[in-house]
């Protein structure tokens, strides 16, 4: 496909009260979305990850989503849900592709990999879920409040790990956040989801 096509393109996406949403995201973009809770931000991310049936079409690198196997699409357009799920006894069992980023960057020790999931705190699970997602090397990251419930120090670590991944892999990021200060720190584009529609907003302190 031509180099002109954006990394991720979405046209006329509709799901329940969300939409129509038309959006195109380039490699290296970090696009933040905020909006009232219950406004459909998670629904929008779920639809982009193709977890819910929806109207409209999507392209990755100019290739229509319908031509891409769903499991391949979800690896390339990887979603981090607000609550992580674990289904095997140990942490390591969930990392089939090894670890992409050194765990110390996110404030965790390597030994945590051999711990039973049951003993993890919710903050550890949240950060490990991000690491697990990154180990899939997605080209687009859909992050649903990845730092909710984290303390400032760990929030900062998560932000820098995501920034590093975005830089190293030229990944695009769609980031749902409530925190204006965070949006100012990480986003180069900012939208508000209100009444099911995305409205482009300026980011304070940026031109």
């Amino acid at each position, binding site marked *: 496909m031509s180099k002109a096509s954006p990394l991720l393109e979405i046209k006329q996406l509709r799901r329940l009260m969300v939409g129509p949403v038309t959006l195109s995201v380039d490699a290296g973009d970090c696009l933040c979305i905020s909006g009232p809770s219950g406004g459909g931000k998670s629904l929008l991310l779920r639809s982009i990850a193709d*977890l819910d*049936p929806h109207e409209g079409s999507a392209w990755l690198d100019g290739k229509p989503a319908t031509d891409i196997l769903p*499991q*391949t699409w979800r690896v390339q357009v*990887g979603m981090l849900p607000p609550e*992580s799920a674990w*289904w095997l006894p140990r942490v390591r069992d969930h990392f089939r592709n090894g670890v992409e980023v050194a765990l110390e960057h996110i404030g965790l020790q390597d030994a945590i990999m051999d711990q039973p999931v049951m003993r993890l705190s919710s903050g550890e699970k949240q950060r490990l879920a991000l690491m697990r*997602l990154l180990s*899939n090397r997605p080209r687009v990251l859909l992050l649903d409040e990845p730092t909710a419930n984290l303390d400032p120090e760990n929030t900062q670590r998560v932000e820098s790990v995501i920034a590093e991944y975005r830089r190293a892999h030229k990944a695009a990021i769609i980031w749902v956040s409530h925190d204006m200060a965070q949006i100012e720190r990480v986003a180069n584009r900012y939208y508000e989801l209100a009444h099911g529609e995305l409205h482009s907003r300026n980011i304070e302190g940026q031109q």
Partner: protein
Amino acid sequence: MIELSVIDLALAASLVLLLALVSMRLQSGISHQLLIAAVRTAVQLTLIGLVLKVIFESASLGWVTLLSVVMLLIAGREVMARQERRFTGWWGYAVGTFSMFLSSFAVTVFALIVILGEDPWYTPQYAIPLLGMLLGNTMNGISIAMDRLTHAAWEQRQVIEARLMLGERWDEAIADYRQQAIRSGMIPIINAMAAAGIVSLPGMMTGQILAGAPPVEAVKYQILIMFLIAAGTGLGTLAAVTIGSKHLFDERQRLCLDRLRQP
């Protein structure tokens, strides 16, 4: 064989009545249900006895087929009713009924033609009781397994969707719950086979012995039945869980919980 008179049965019924009276005194609230169930047993079995008498005498393939289909449809309804979160629409009925048809009918026909070899193969004396026992047991296996599967899909949706988000195929994402469902559907017959003769004397064998059959012959029949039931239940459970777990996902491998009924 000792022929039972109406008085003999009335004596047995008096035991149930006594039980009902006692439980009424204890206000257990179950005596009403107990009496209704007892009456149903008497009426239903008497009716089926008459139907069987007619069908045994006619011995026509048409009547045997008709009765078999009626039995299948009723068993299908029972399987559906026992699932709290069954599939909505006709799927709720079809998955279990089709799986029972596939397994019970195949196993019964196999037993009739290959093992028993009566002429004609559909001789109702053999065909109907065999099919009945198979349907009854397959029904249990399938309804337990499907109930387990749909419950797991509902309760573990976060896990299943997390696995999808990480790029697993639908069959990988549900593999654990599919396995558990199959296991729970087959455990009862495995337990029954393991305990047969030691803990319990199976009903069919006991019935034959009471009716005057030599014990060794009755035992041979019981073993045959156990194997047929195991094969039928296993096949039916596998079929239902395979079809059911596939139907939990759509063509884009999304988990479709809206296909399940809200209890």
